[in-house]
């Protein structure tokens, strides 16, 4: 026992020297005590710990600790059955990095409560966010500007602010409905939220800094530690969208400081566009004189082919284009899937619709697999880029299995498809939502 304590200390020292975060060290300690326990028991568990250690040692040797990496196998016990603080009921696709969504019936609120807003992380959660500690945080705006800015949180909050409801939706929301299956977090339909965000319009900041004539694109920087040797997560948007009135540098979500998982203390909110544009844990915006070319802007990341490709095929990188706005979509939030109902009884049908840069024209409901449709009542959004809400009701005369379908249309006549069009990484999935109901007499 004494020996292994020494080992613990020595390895711990190494981790510290290599820049492991306090969080990593906590995990290390947890797992090491667990490991001693297992070693005492002997048998199967020991093998597993040993193996985990093997890969871990390689990483120590490669100096990869301090880049946010510690063997998750060590901590498997610690993160198992993950419940993410402040997000009760979240379906966690992955606890490290945290990725989770809520089932549609929990997204019924007009304005998504913070506890029901999905989480899509590419890297780890910054220590500052966990501690809700604004100390030392600064926002830098530089690049192709005449007067670079450096603002503290206080200074940012003193500027004139704007408050909007804004749809933020992961570009991969709907991926689970792709066939053949594609790689990535298997989002079903819940990687969307429409919360209320307060912050400084990005254009006010850009005007204050003075955009140069050659400004073309933004490049966002955050303080989330990357995983492994992945480069820091970064995406950007064209200057036109950055100058759009609803694009915010937000410091409040639903009237509170941002939740740790949703970007505390400050994030970008690019409403209507794929979520990765809305950089969390923001520390910098660099203005570029060319299209941003980070890892997540190039290759197959957050990009789709310029033209439809046969399902299951991967065209060359050269035909991939950067994802921007979402397209027409709707979500039935009531009734819940697999609801039991009785014949002749009225069932309320409710949900939301949204359309990226477009407006929602109508939402139709069907209970006979799309043979006949009726229009739902549509409520206008609180502001541009917020959710529309729809209400309708249905009833069934006979016992059996039924599905409630919703199909939204935008003002241009675009509508949700009946089958999911395919692309190699499963982006922009917007196939119509079908909710099963079981009807009894």
């Amino acid at each position: 026992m004494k020996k292994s304590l020494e080992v613990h200390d020595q390895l711990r020292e190494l981790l510290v020297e290599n820049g492991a975060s306090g969080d990593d060290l906590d995990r290390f300690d947890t797992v090491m005590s667990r490991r001693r326990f297992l070693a005492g028991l002997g048998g199967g568990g020991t093998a597993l710990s040993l193996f985990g250690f093997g890969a871990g040692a390689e990483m120590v040797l490669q100096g990869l600790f301090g880049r946010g990496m510690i063997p998750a196998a060590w901590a498997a016990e610690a993160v198992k059955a993950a419940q993410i603080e402040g997000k009760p009921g979240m379906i966690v696709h992955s606890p490290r990095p945290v990725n989770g969504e809520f089932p549609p019936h929990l997204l019924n609120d007009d304005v998504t409560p913070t506890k029901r807003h999905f989480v899509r992380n590419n890297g780890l959660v910054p220590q500052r966010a966990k501690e809700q500690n604004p100390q030392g945080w600064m926002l830098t705006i530089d690049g192709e500007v005449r007067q670079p800015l450096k603002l503290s949180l206080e200074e940012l909050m003193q500027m004139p602010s704007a408050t909007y409801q804004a749809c933020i939706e992961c570009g991969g929301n709907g991926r689970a409905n792709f066939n053949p299956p594609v790689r990535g977090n298997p989002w079903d339909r819940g990687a969307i939220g429409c919360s209320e965000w307060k912050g400084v319009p990005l254009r006010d900041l850009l005007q204050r800094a003075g955009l140069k004539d050659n400004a073309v694109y933004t490049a966002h920087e955050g303080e989330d530690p990357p995983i492994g040797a992945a480069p820091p997560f970064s995406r950007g948007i064209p200057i036109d969208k950055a100058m759009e009135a609803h694009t915010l540098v937000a410091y409040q979500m639903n009237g509170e400081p941002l939740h740790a998982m949703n970007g505390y203390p400050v994030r970008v909110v690019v409403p209507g566009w794929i979520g990765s544009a809305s950089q969390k844990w923001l520390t910098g915006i660099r203005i570029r004189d060319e299209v941003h070319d980070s890892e997540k802007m190039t290759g197959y990341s957050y990009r789709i082919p310029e033209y439809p490709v046969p399902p299951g095929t991967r065209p060359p990188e050269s035909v991939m284009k950067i994802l921007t706005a979402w397209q027409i979509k709707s979500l039935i939030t009531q009734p819940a899937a697999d609801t039991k109902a009785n014949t002749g009884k009225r069932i309320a049908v409710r949900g939301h619709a949204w359309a990226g840069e477009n407006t929602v024209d109508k939402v139709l409901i069907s209970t006979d697999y799309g043979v006949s449709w009726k229009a739902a009542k549509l409520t206008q959004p609180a502001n541009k880029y917020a959710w529309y809400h729809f209400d309708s009701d249905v009833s069934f005369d006979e016992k059996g299995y039924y599905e409630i379908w919703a199909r939204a249309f935008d003002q241009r006549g675009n509508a949700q498809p009946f089958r999911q069009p395919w692309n190699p990484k499963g982006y922009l999935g917007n196939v119509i939502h079908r909710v099963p109901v079981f009807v009894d007499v």
Partner: protein
Amino acid sequence: MSERRFCGLWPDRHSVRAAIPGGFIAVVATAMSILIGNALAAEPNGRPHKSMAENPPEVETAPNVEAAPKKLFETHCSACHSLELPRSQHLDRDTWRWVMDDMVNKYGATWITEKQQERILDYLVEHYGPQSQ
């Protein structure tokens, strides 16, 4: 404790070591060898294997270490993220190859040898293929 204890566990060790300062290695090596010695001593059924601890197995003679594809998968693919990420997938061989290439080339899983990659791929295609549940 000698550095010999690394032998057989990580076939990539030479290239890894070449890039790292010696003092650093020495500490890790010592720490690792103590730990591995302890762990091996209790394998495989709780009975101490003194001889193994003194003389760790080579790749070929250690089926539990190198041959079990499930173990390889669990070891290497949990190094950076939870296993839920790969376990939630249902991919064909080409796509798993694409994922693997990204893990190695873009994200730094360079220590996984080509041979290990092939074994892990076989395992993934068998258990997490397009038809898997």
